[in-house]
């Protein structure tokens, strides 16, 4: 930490956000280390520390002798005020060095509501906001994470971004910077070398075009080093790739404060609204041996009392029941709890319930997403009502008394009948819970969380309109009335926030000026209800003469899309086919269990699903 901050640290809320000094934090000799990377997350410490991607990069970069990685997160509003008042620059946690003297400043872009914080952090760091204004001596400002698959609203602020998994490409980037430092390569030349690294997208090497109405009509490469389309990076084998054996252990209470082990990456269920399922393919599982070793190492080096088996859908891990059984046998008596994130209704079963309940019991979360079978078929969430009720039965009978159900409203083809379906499901689940009340001794509670659907790039729904804000509000009110019952808690999200998310999610470079203006007007921490100001955003839009609802409307199938040049692997044909199947209410199976859905990824990328059981069958398991 910067010593100057330490002097007034007791005057701000939660001083441990800025203190550093945690167990397993890495302090290297600044002067002896060639390439210095600042890993930035555009939110506060307690949110940022949950991000696994940055933990992986922190470990990988620090393992190199010629490089160091330090962390920097968004200062909370009171700290920001002090920094500006005292004219102190934004500095890293470990060494307290100003961000602007690092070689690389890398942002993790996990959600659109973090975009304003990115620009604000650049300002606080004293780094020119616009890529075009940076000179030799300014850090390379780069980014990674799911939002880079449509980074266009932020494209003018980044020197380059990395698509996909960074474990391997990060080394190439650092090698390039090391080489560049030694040879005195110019910034422009460095970007040309970067553009040639697979997975790297240099926005300044492309020029967007707009038609007479000002609508995006295409993006042209203007530098020979720039490929037509940038293909994401994929790590083929998760058992071989580097994974941390230690995590920095925070002092303060942070989100998801447990030893995280990724059990698999990717998901091929093919839910049509889900961008993560589209961009993280193929599915690659880690072997149980690798998982057990990683869990042991992490528990020994951190002392955490809980292990989280994370992935997009851990219940789908091939041998999940067996793995849980083996883990519980070892960890139960040590008092170590196991947790799984939200589970698919159809992979949750009585036996799984038995395994999880042996260790800690919190609430269980399921995500049916839609209230009727019809709509679930449209979105390809292949979950039947019986599955949900059976899962609820298994959960309550195993002793749970708290179940959370995730839904979305505003899905394509939705009618009020579908909303009635949500209410009906919630009531049925609560009814099941109430039957077990005498046995469980506690009143059952069902929490219904209904998010507003936001159409995302690279999904079969990328052409769909978002429901207008007043329609969403009406639907929320409609649901609220039907969920009024003791034992049911109803959570919903601010509609204006969802609207803005939809604008940014399918935005283009015309939004850069709007973002910049919004930040100048004081927008920051948009993901935090108490700081989000829709009025300021509206002012930014109107000042720049941009109509946000242009971005939330429907797109024509033949229309060029601002993210067409960024390739997550699934083909546009596949997405279009899936959109047509959605409208016909036809479901598509999961290629792990049924036939290939022809998303065209495997052939194009030379990869395939890697499943533990299949590995055993091929005799590849050691």
């Amino acid at each position, binding site marked *: 930490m910067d010593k100057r901050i330490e002097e007034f*640290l*007791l005057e701000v809320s939660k001083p441990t956000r800025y*203190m550093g*000094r945690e167990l397993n934090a890495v302090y290297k000799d600044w002067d002896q280390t060639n390439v210095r990377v600042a890993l930035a997350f555009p939110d506060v410490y307690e949110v940022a520390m949950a991000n696994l991607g940055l933990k992986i990069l922190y470990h990988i970069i620090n393992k190199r002798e010629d490089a160091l990685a330090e962390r920097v997160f968004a200062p909370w509003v009171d700290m920001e005020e002090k920094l500006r008042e005292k004219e102190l620059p934004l500095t890293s946690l470990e060494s307290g060095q100003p961000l602007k003297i690092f070689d690389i400043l890398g942002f993790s872009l996990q959600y659109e509501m973090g975009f304003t914080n990115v620009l604000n952090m650049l300002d606080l760091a004293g780094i020119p906001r616009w890529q075009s204004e940076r000179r030799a001596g300014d850090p390379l400002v780069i980014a990674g994470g799911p939002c880079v698959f449509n980074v266009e609203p932020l494209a003018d602020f980044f020197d380059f971004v990395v698509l996909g998994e960074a474990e391997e490409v990060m080394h190439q980037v650092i090698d390039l910077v090391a080489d560049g430092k030694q040879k005195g390569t110019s910034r422009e030349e460095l970007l040309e070398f970067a553009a040639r690294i697979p997975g790297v997208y240099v926005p300044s090497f492309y020029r967007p075009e707009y038609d007479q109405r000002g609508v995006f009509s295409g993006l042209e490469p203007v530098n020979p080093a720039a490929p037509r389309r940038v293909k994401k990076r994929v790590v083929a084998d998760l058992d071989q790739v580097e994974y941390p054996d230690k995590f920095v252990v925070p*002092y303060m*209470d942070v989100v998801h404060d447990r030893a995280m082990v990724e059990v698999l990456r990717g998901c091929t269920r093919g839910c049509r609204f889900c961008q993560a399922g589209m961009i993280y393919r193929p599915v690659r599982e880690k072997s149980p041996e690798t998982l057990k070793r990683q869990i042991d190492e992490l528990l020994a080096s*951190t*002392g*955490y009392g809980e292990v989280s088996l994370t992935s997009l859908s851990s219940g789908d891990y091939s041998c999940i029941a067996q793995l849980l059984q083996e883990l519980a046998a070892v960890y139960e008596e040590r008092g170590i709890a196991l947790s799984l994130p939200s589970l698919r209704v159809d992979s949750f079963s009585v036996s799984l319930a038995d395994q999880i309940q042996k260790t*800690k019991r919190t609430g269980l979360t399921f995500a049916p997403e839609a209230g009727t079978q019809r709509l679930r078929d449209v979105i390809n969430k292949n979950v039947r009502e019986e599955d949900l009720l059976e899962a609820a039965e298994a959960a309550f009978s195993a002793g749970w008394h708290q179940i959370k159900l995730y839904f979305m409203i505003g899905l394509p083809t939705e009618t009020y009948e579908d909303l009635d379906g949500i209410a009906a499901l919630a009531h049925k689940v609560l009814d099941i819970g109430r039957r077990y009340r005498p046995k469980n001794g506690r009143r059952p509670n069902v929490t219904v969380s209904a998010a507003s659907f936001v159409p995302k790039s690279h999904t079969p729904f990328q052409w769909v309109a978002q429901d207008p804000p007043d329609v969403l509000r009406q639907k929320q009110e409609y649901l609220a009335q039907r969920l009024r019952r003791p034992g049911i808690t109803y959570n919903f999200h601010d509609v204006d926030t969802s609207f803005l998310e939809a604008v940014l999610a399918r935005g283009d470079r015309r939004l850069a000026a709007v973002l910049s203006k919004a930040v100048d007007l004081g927008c920051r921490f948009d993901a935090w209800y108490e700081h989000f100001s829709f009025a300021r955003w509206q002012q930014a839009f109107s000042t720049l003469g941009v109509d946000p609802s242009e971005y939330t409307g429907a797109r024509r199938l033949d229309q060029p899309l601002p993210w067409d040049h960024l390739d997550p692997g699934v083909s546009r044909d596949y997405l279009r086919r899936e959109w047509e199947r959605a409208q016909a209410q036809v479901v598509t199976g999961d290629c792990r269990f049924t036939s290939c859905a022809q998303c065209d990824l495997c052939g194009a990328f030379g990869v395939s699903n890697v499943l533990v059981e299949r590995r055993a069958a091929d005799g590849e398991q050691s």
Partner: protein
Amino acid sequence: MESKVRVQFAKEWELRFLSHLDLVRTIERAVRRAALPVALSQGFNPQPRIAYASALAVGVSSDGEYLDIDLTHKVPASQVVSRLNSTLPRGLRVVEAVEVSPQAKSLTAQVNAACYLFRFSSVDDRRLQDSIGQLLQTAEVIVERETKNGRRQIDIRPLIYDLTTVAGDYQLKLLCATGSKGNLRPEEAVEQLDGATGLKAIHRQGLYVRDSAGKLQKPTELERLT
């Protein structure tokens, strides 16, 4: 539960920003890393059985904090010290550990006094001494405290046992009541004084068990088995 070990530890200047809860979390994890056979509580959510004496405020460092840890197997106290010290983050340090009777009275029940040191940026010795003298002669000193139940008036004079100037890194030393039977917040005493401005640091030199005659004992001296 096989044995109980009473541990004295220090929270150093560099980690003064930790809250009591942060500290509890940190020690719990250190105990796991040290593979100490800590006993777990019963029920659905077993927690390591570690009990503290008195919460240490954010911003205050200390040389004399205490905790009791219940172990399922006997571990020599010296090993408890070395194993914890080998894994605690820099800024936390075990000073001493002793085995105490498993039936020993809890730290919260016994610990009732604390000794604080204060460092100021500017001190007028004469004025400070006079001010201390005056305060100690006053029968009643009423302060207003914000508690969970709203604002309350509290007489803090009986909570102040001793107050003197000292030489060295710190300039003022306070011995006062702490715990459930009467608790003085160190700033409350300082606010009553003249002649010292710019409070820079508060350090808790130690927690004690004080008897009716005013004799002080370290919690590790009581009930030790060796």
